[in-house]
């Protein structure tokens, strides 16, 4: 018999910082990302995009483009008229614009040609006649009544003006709460929009076979949703479509919904019978967007004499851009998670999302919770200062308790927020430093919470959120099949850790087959930080399912009851007499002989009692919440207004850390990204145009701007998580932005009520010219 399997050097994979299994391919250039795929006879596609923010399309003439050498096909709106959208309630996009365009950069036509240059040259030959319409470029403008010369961005919408969605929710007796308050803090904030800027530009390759089957590779975080949308837009049975998600070169939420180029690739491949590739340029990635919504925030918090929160009222106005995207969910998310961190006597939330003529906004790391968190933690800082309380101790005093319910009826289980708060405060000597540093130097603290997966799916259905199959080969190799997409967060490795731990084998004996709708059971996708919790639980039960048969066979061989079998270090042995043992491979072979082909299945569906029963209660519930706390230290140059972040200490309660190095990596990346949003990243527009659609002008922190980040992993035991794990992908970002804002306030003695906190804003604040953000009273927040 040949050599099978390998004895792992450690008893447990969970908790060990082993190299990620997909890391080998990533450090050798062997990992095949979407744009690395090339197929024989492949055509190249280009999209022609709108130069106008708001215009009617009068005519499109593409005869000349079609005659251009090398061009194979052209398509326009009427060729693919089906409307689609990620949410069932917002089916408002078409692959190519029909009748009107709603933002600069919206796709109007597509071309495929023998090479990229021909497609590009031909795009310039398409003649589109437009009649421009007045554009709507801000929340304020969108709330104004549409006057004679204008028209609503979505004329068919029954909402007033350019309002897309409104939410009004109240929990507890708000009036009584405010009446009981000793002080009411009333502030307005503005959080600027920004984008993911994942380093990989989106790419999709479609191949439509003579058998009528479509294969579509795409850099997507959500292969399952792409599967559904492709079926409906292309009018093909889902059973004839295979979606494959190769490794994704960064997502951060920017690749979570089907967009035009993916569907265009599929359409053209069907039309031409040849493989078709579309890869976006960096500029096009900025137009595709789906990034962080700009949000105006009004926050009123009533405090009792002991500092506890008697009542809190949050109003948000979201600038949604031209289409719905995830916007309805984003709107709810701006209100849903504030109460997950602190106890409140009463809470009211009013949200309003508007359409504007900008690229559509969607989810970015922290989805909708990031902006109000910035506001709330900024205001809590002011409250603590006003009451003369230590910001960390104050938060710990009003923190939500483990295993409790929030004021908005969300079920909270494990909660390590107090531990995270004290960890960051102690590491930095926060209490000794705050308010006492030299002028220009400041320290700030903030905390936050986040989901471990949305408790409800995007489209209503009673099926599992995640499924997995674990197959055991008679050579000892184990393959886990699961529909996840790895965008760098480590989902491949997470699946391997769970299966290796459950079967007691070496992690390199586990192969992961993910993100392939022909081969893998559905996982809803890499969004809402759901993968570790949900796919991890599915993989764990699939591994347990197959382990049961192996234990039965091994028990028979060893003459012991199956429940005495321990799986560890590549062996199956008797709990009571460990020298009675079989190798894992021999145990698996015995099981295959007894039971036939060895595979286990598992699935995960969140419990049902996570939330209250009211309209809108579906957004916010999660089987568990992660908690984080951050301290930032800054130095501000009074001459230039420049801010230097000297230190970020970020503690995150991830439940059990399956791989501590990967958790640290998520914390470090979150700190960096939050710092970028706090200080420099902004999706800025001027005269209808994206001002900076490139990576030089859209400023992100470089390695010189970013301090060495100190990540602290806080472990709690989450009973429902796989091996006790929660999430680390998004949650740690949220407290970073307010921690930096609070540090700047400490450094300059004045608060800046908007992001990004640019040198210009610092200088204005020092001049005293900004002070509090006084936004004009919003118009028509409630539609009849």
């Amino acid at each position, binding site marked *: 018999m040949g050599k099978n399997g390998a004895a792992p050097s450690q008893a447990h994979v969970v908790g060990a910082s082993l190299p990620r299994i997909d890391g080998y391919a990533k450090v050798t250039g062997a990992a095949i990302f979407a744009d690395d795929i090339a197929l024989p006879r492949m055509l190249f596609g280009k999209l022609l995009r709108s130069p106008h923010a708001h215009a009617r399309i009068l005519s499109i003439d593409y005869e000349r483009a079609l005659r251009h050498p*090398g061009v194979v096909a052209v398509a326009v709106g009427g060729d693919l008229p089906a409307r689609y959208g990620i949410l069932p309630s917002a089916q408002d996009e078409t692959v190519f614009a029909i009748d009107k365009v709603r933002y600069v950069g919206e796709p109007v036509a597509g071309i495929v040609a023998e090479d990229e240059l021909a497609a590009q040259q031909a795009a310039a030959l398409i003649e589109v006649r437009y009649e421009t319409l007045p554009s709507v470029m801000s929340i304020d403008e969108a709330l104004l009544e549409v006057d004679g010369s204008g028209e609503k961005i979505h004329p068919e919408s029954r909402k007033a003006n350019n309002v897309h969605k409104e939410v009004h929710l109240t929990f507890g007796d708000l009036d009584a709460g405010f009446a009981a308050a000793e002080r009411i803090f009333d502030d307005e904030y503005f959080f600027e929009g920004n984008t993911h800027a994942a380093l990989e530009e989106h790419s999709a390759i479609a191949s439509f076979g003579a058998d009528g089957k479509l294969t579509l590779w795409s850099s997507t975080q959500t292969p399952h949703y792409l599967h559904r949308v492709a079926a409906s837009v292309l009018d093909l049975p889902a059973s004839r479509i295979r979606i494959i998600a190769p490794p994704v*070169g960064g997502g951060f939420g920017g690749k979570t919904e089907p967009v035009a180029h993916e569907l265009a690739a599929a359409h053209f491949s069907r039309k031409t019978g040849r493989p078709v590739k579309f890869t976006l340029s960096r500029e096009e990635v900025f137009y595709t967007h789906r990034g962080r919504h700009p949000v105006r925030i009004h926050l009123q918090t009533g405090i009792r004499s002991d500092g506890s929160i008697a009542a809190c009222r949050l109003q948000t106005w979201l600038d949604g851009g031209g289409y719905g995207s995830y916007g309805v969910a984003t709107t709810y998310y701006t209100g849903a998670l504030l109460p997950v961190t602190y106890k409140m006597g009463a809470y009211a939330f009013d949200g309003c999302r508007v359409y504007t003529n900008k690229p559509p906004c969607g989810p970015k790391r922290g989805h909708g919770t990031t902006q109000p968190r910035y506001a709330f933690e900024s205001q809590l800082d002011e409250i603590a200062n006003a009451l003369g309380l230590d910001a960390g101790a104050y938060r710990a005093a009003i923190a939500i308790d483990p295993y409790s319910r929030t004021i908005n009826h969300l079920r909270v289980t494990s909660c390590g927020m107090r531990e995270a708060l004290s960890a960051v405060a102690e590491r930095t000597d926060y209490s000794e430093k705050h308010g006492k540093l030299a002028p220009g130097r400041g320290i700030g603290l903030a905390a936050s919470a986040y989901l471990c997966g949305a408790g409800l799916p995007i489209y209503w259905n009673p099926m599992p959120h995640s499924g997995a199959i674990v197959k055991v080969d008679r050579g000892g190799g184990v393959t886990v099949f699961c529909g996840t997409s790895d965008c760098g967060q480590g989902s491949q490795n997470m699946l391997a850790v769970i299966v290796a731990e459950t079967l007691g084998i070496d992690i390199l004996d586990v192969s992961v087959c993910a993100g392939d709708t022909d081969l893998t059971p559905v996982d809803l996708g890499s969004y809402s930080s759901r993968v570790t919790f949900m796919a991890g639980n599915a993989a764990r039960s699939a591994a347990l399912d197959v382990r049961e048969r192996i234990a039965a066979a091994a028990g028979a061989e060893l003459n012991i009851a199956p429940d005495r079998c321990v799986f560890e270090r590549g062996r199956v042995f008797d709990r009571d007499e460990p020298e009675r043992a079989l190798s894992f491979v021999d145990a698996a072979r015995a099981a295959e002989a007894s039971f036939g082909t060895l595979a286990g299945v598992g699935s995960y569906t969140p419990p049902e009692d996570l939330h209250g029963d009211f309209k809108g209660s579906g957004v916010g519930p999660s089987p568990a919440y992660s908690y984080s706390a951050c301290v930032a230290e800054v130095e501000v140059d009074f001459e230039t207004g420049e801010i230097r972040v000297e230190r970020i200490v970020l503690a995150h309660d991830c439940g059990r850390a399956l791989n501590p190095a990967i958790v640290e990596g998520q914390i470090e990346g979150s700190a960096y990204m939050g710092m970028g949003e706090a200080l420099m990243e902004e999706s800025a527009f001027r005269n209808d145009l994206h001002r900076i659609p490139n990576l030089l002008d859209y400023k992100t922190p470089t390695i*010189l701007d970013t301090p060495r980040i100190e990540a602290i992993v806080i472990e709690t035991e989450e009973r429902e998580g796989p091996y006790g794990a929660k999430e680390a992908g998004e949650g740690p970002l949220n407290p970073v932005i307010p921690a930096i804002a609070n540090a700047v306030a400490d450094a300059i003695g004045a608060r800046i009520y908007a992001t990004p906190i640019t040198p210009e804003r610092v200088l204005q604040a020092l001049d005293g010219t900004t002070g509090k953000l006084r936004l004009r009273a919003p118009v028509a927040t409630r539609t009849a």
Partner: protein
Amino acid sequence: MSIAPSKILATLRVNGRDVTLAFHPHATLLEVLREELRLTGTKHGCELGQCGACTVILDGTPVLSCLTLAADAIGRSVETVEGLAVDGTLHPVQRAFLELGAAQCGYCTPGFLNAAVHLLEKNLEPSEAEIRDALAGHLCRCTGYTKIVEAVALAGRRMRAAANG
């Protein structure tokens, strides 16, 4: 086909081997490496010289392959990420990136690796500031750079130890 000037035939030395191939005179080194030679380990995040993902080593110096004409590399030596591991053994920088988790999505990684190897070839004991300086032209959206800096320092320490026998 597109309206484009005809191709030129030329020889480049890529990862130590001469390759002769035809490409358009306007083709970038990035395009030729990825599309003609199928060395897809070299990545692109902007094709405008702004992200560093496409960095390769040309005659011993890191260059942005998206801004370099392939024609300018004729007769010269080009090294890409595919050439870093020798006979299947990872370069110490690759190993350190792997062990510390300095590659998350891995898309920026080939560019960082090339720049880091170049730095360590000149200086086996770089300070943190020197490491950061050498990598300043590279964007990474995933890692916060912390583990990248640590990995380069670790690789330097190991290479030093190996050199000192």
